[in-house]
Structures are given as structure tokens and as C-alpha cells.
């Protein structure tokens, strides 16, 4: 079964009151939603909280839900709305809110923005900037695929048309550079 079909099946079961189907949906889409949220706002606590809030709300209104063609995009929209509400609540004048409202998905954060934005310590932020600057574009791309997108080395090899060994070595060399600077 394709993942999207499975999501739809879970959705239907969830509407009928099967909580385990809701949990199945959660496990299927968790990382996807977190990544989507981080691209909107690099506050991991906010994103994690909203992801769970979305699922809690989903359960509350399960009887009023309609069949959905694309469960993933439905939940992405819900997550986005939840984050907007929370941000607006925290600070009504928050610039991020205005930005999110106006620019829609066009201005999503880059992987680099996200991982630097998440660090609270200025020193680590700087080191991370320096470290990333030392990586080749290819190395950084593979780091993103491996750690952020969560692909396996096999998937990376396939997507970037190289051998698994080369993919691994590229990531390994990049990690060496990062570790040296972040130490």
C-alpha cells in the first residue's frame, strides 16, 4: 500500500472512532510535519507542541470531519494555522506572524537558517556558520538529506546518482569538518 493510501485508510478509521488509527497517522507523518513546521518557524518547541495539538483537535472533531483526498496536506494546513494562532497569542506584534501571513509558503526557511536559528547559544551559532561555510555545496546537500530529510544512504545514492559508498564518505568527511569546529 502506498503511504498516501495508508494515510487515507487511517483517516477513515479515525473518523469512525479508532484512536489507534489516529496514532498510526501520527507515526506516519510526525517527521514530515515537524520538518514542515520548522521551515515556517525555527522554534522546535512550538512546532512539536502544535503538531500534538493538531492531533488532539483532530480527535475532538473526528465526527465532524469529511473524507480527505490528501491527508498530509490537510494536516500541514492545520499545523500552519495552529502555529500562527500560537504565535499571535504569544505576541500580537510578532513580525514572524505578519511575515507568515503575507508571504504564505514562498519564504520558507532554508535548512541552514533552521539549524542555526534553533541554537540559543551565540557561540554555537557562530561556530555552526563557520563550519557550514567550510563545507562544499555537495557535502551540505547530503548532510541535509541524511539528517534533516532522514534519507538512508541508499536513498541518497539513488537520488544523487552516486554509489552508496561515495554518499557515505561525503557525509563522513563533512561530519569530520563540523566536529573539528564545533568541538
Amino acid at each position, binding site marked *: 500500500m502506498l503511504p498516501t493510501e495508508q494515510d487515507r485508510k487511517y483517516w477513515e478509521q479515525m473518523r469512525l472512532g479508532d*484512536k489507534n488509527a489516529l*496514532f498510526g497517522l*501520527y*507515526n506516519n507523518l*510526525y*517527521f514530515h510535519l*515537524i*520538518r514542515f513546521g*520548522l521551515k515556517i518557524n*525555527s522554534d*522546535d*518547541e*512550538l512546532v*512539536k*507542541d502544535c*503538531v*500534538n*495539538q493538531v*492531533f*488532539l483537535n483532530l*480527535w475532538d472533531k473526528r465526527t465532524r470531519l469529511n473524507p480527505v483526498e490528501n491527508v498530509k496536506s490537510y494536516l500541514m494546513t492545520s499545523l500552519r494555522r495552529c502555529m500562527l494562532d*500560537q504565535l499571535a*497569542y*504569544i*505576541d500580537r506584534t510578532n513580525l514572524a506572524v505578519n511575515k507568515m501571513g503575507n508571504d504564505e509558503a514562498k519564504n520558507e526557511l532554508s*535548512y541552514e537558517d*533552521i*539549524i542555526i536559528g*534553533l*541554537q*540559543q*547559544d551565540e557561540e*554555537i551559532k557562530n561556530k*555552526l556558520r563557520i563550519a557550514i561555510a567550510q563545507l562544499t555545496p555537495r557535502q551540505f546537500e547530503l*548532510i541535509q538529506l*541524511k*539528517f*534533516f530529510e*532522514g534519507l*538512508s*544512504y541508499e536513498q541518497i545514492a539513488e537520488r544523487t546518482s552516486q554509489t552508496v559508498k561515495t554518499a*557515505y564518505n561525503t*557525509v*563522513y568527511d563533512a*561530519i*569530520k569538518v*563540523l*566536529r573539528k569546529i*564545533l568541538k
Partner: protein
Amino acid sequence: MQLPQNDFLIEELICNDSFQEYCLGTSVEKHLLWEDWINNLPERASDIENAKKIVNILTAKQGSRLQQFKDLKNGFKQKETLSLLLDGDTSEKTLYQTSRIFYNYISFAAAAVIILFSIYFIPDSYLPFKKTQSGKDLSASVFFSGAALRKTVILTDGTVITLNKNSEVRLIKNFNPAKRELWLKGEAFFEVKHDASHPFTVHTSINDIKVLGTSFNVKACVESPVVETSLIQGSVQVKSKIYPGYTVLLKPGQKLLYNNTNTQKGPDFKKIFIVSSLELAHADHKPKEIQWLRNQMIIDNEPLALIAEKLQKWYGIEIYIADNEVKDYRYSGTFENESIIKTLEALQIAYPFEFKATQNRITISK
């Protein structure tokens, strides 16, 4: 799946697919497998910690799905408990059916607030009940730590308060999940349930602190002529009582110093309300403002019964273990948490147990 040799390089560990999945909490099997491997390699503990740190940075703190899933389940339980509390007048409130029932206020916006306020202002503005409310409202619950180093109290909305020595909180009459206000004298750490429709307010003689987030630390020393409000995470709004209408919204990592020692004619707000960054201790990069609370507990293969004794002593709340079997669960690891609830949750990950918290007692069971 092959686990690394004991002489692994840190880089190899970071690049290990399975290790990354362990860090992201993708499955219970992986979690147990790697925890076991890590526990058997105490001499490489700091290297493993280093590897985790890098993975955590590069995965953009996507978090542990296992942990988040647990939070979700507890969120459901929290909702059930809250609706019970709001519907019926249940006198014995069990707030933690299991672990993080109040999931969304820990994770969403943990806030730490530290307040130091002057004795000069206390006589006229403390005890607000006296002025504004009828006599019977004075029966509001009061918790006082006295000479104990710390005392933990769990409120009916699920909020956990850890009081420092000689500190007191006084709850509003009929404090409940929909009506959350209290008065503080002394120092305390709060983990407050985040609930947008029911704000949580901490009153002090000088300021009212409205908690927009979830977990915060309040410290108040009566001898000091200053008020200090420090925020670790989340959001709090500090409202001045003396200058009505003046509010400061704190961001994580900031503190607000209220210093009204040099009162002149026209108040210069910039000098009275000073916002600055939190001081981080060199040893662990944790804010100095909550050092009084943090307890580094190193456990090496100790039974839960013994750990519970230590926790009881540190946090000042009675812990009762209902099942003998649970008493013998053995744990290893280093724990450093702001509250007893967080520590128990950390322990739960290795060997699951249940716990329930009432106002001044935590019961652990299978």
C-alpha cells in the same frame, strides 16, 4: 543491524543510520538496543553524548518521536482528566494519571521567572485578599516551605511548584483549572499548564506576572530591594502594580530587573525596569538563576526505591511506591531536571512505570 565496536570513532557513530534513528526515537526496539549498548560503555559516555549533540543539531531538533508520541497520549489523558475536573466537583484530584499529562505547557512555552522583591512594599500590597475580598476567602490554600530546602506542591490544574526555603504561595479561593491565580512570597519554580483561555497569574507585591507560556521559576527574597524576573523559555508578561499600565514582555533568555531604590520624581522606566540576558554558569551553561533548583543526580545501577528516597529529599514531596516489584527496577544515568515530574518522566523511558500525583504526594505503581 550491527552495533559499533567499543573503539568506534565519534564521526562513525554520528554517521551511523541506526544511531540517528535512535536519536530520533523511531522505534522502541532501537531505543532499547542502543540504551543497552550505551549503558555498557560508561567509559565512552561523553563521546556518545557528543555524537548525540551533533545529530541533534543536524536533525534540527526534530525530537524523539517516541517521546512526542508519549506526550500526545498523555495529552489525551490530560483532556479527560480536565473535563472530569471541570464537570464534577471531585475533591481528590489525580492530575498525573501517568507522566506528562500537562504536555502542552511543558513543551510549548516553558518559562522561568525569578522575582526578588523588596520588604518595603510588602505590608501594603501583599495579602490582597484582605482589601478586596470577603473574610472567608482568606481560607485559600497556603503552602509554606519553612526550613526545608525545597518543597514541591502539585496544584489541581496540574501545575507543579517547587518552593525554595522560607517561601510561601497562597492560592486564590477555589483555585481550579479555569481560575488560576496565586500570590508569591519567596522563591519558587513553576511548571504551569499552558492554557490560552485561562491565564495563570502570579502576584507579587510589586508586579503581576501573567504566564503566557508554561513553565517558569519564581524567586523572591524579601530582604532584597529589587525584583528580578528571568525567563528561560516561553513567554511571560510582567505588569507593574506601582506604575499601572506599564508592562514588559520577556523573551526566553532574558531577565527583568526591577530596581526602585532611587525613586525620583518622574520615574525613568529604563532605569527601574532593566532587561538583560540571563547569566549562564560556566560549568553547564545553565542559567545561574535556577541553580538552586537543579540537582545533578548520578545514578549507577540503583533500585527505584533508593532513587525515590533521594528525590523525596531533594524536591520535598512524599513519594510512595505502591508495588514492590517496581521498587527493584534498577536505573543508571545522570539526571538533571528542574522538577520531580521531569525526573520521573526521564526514568520512565528506561523502565516504564506509572505515577499519580496529588497535592503533596506522588504514588508510583506498575
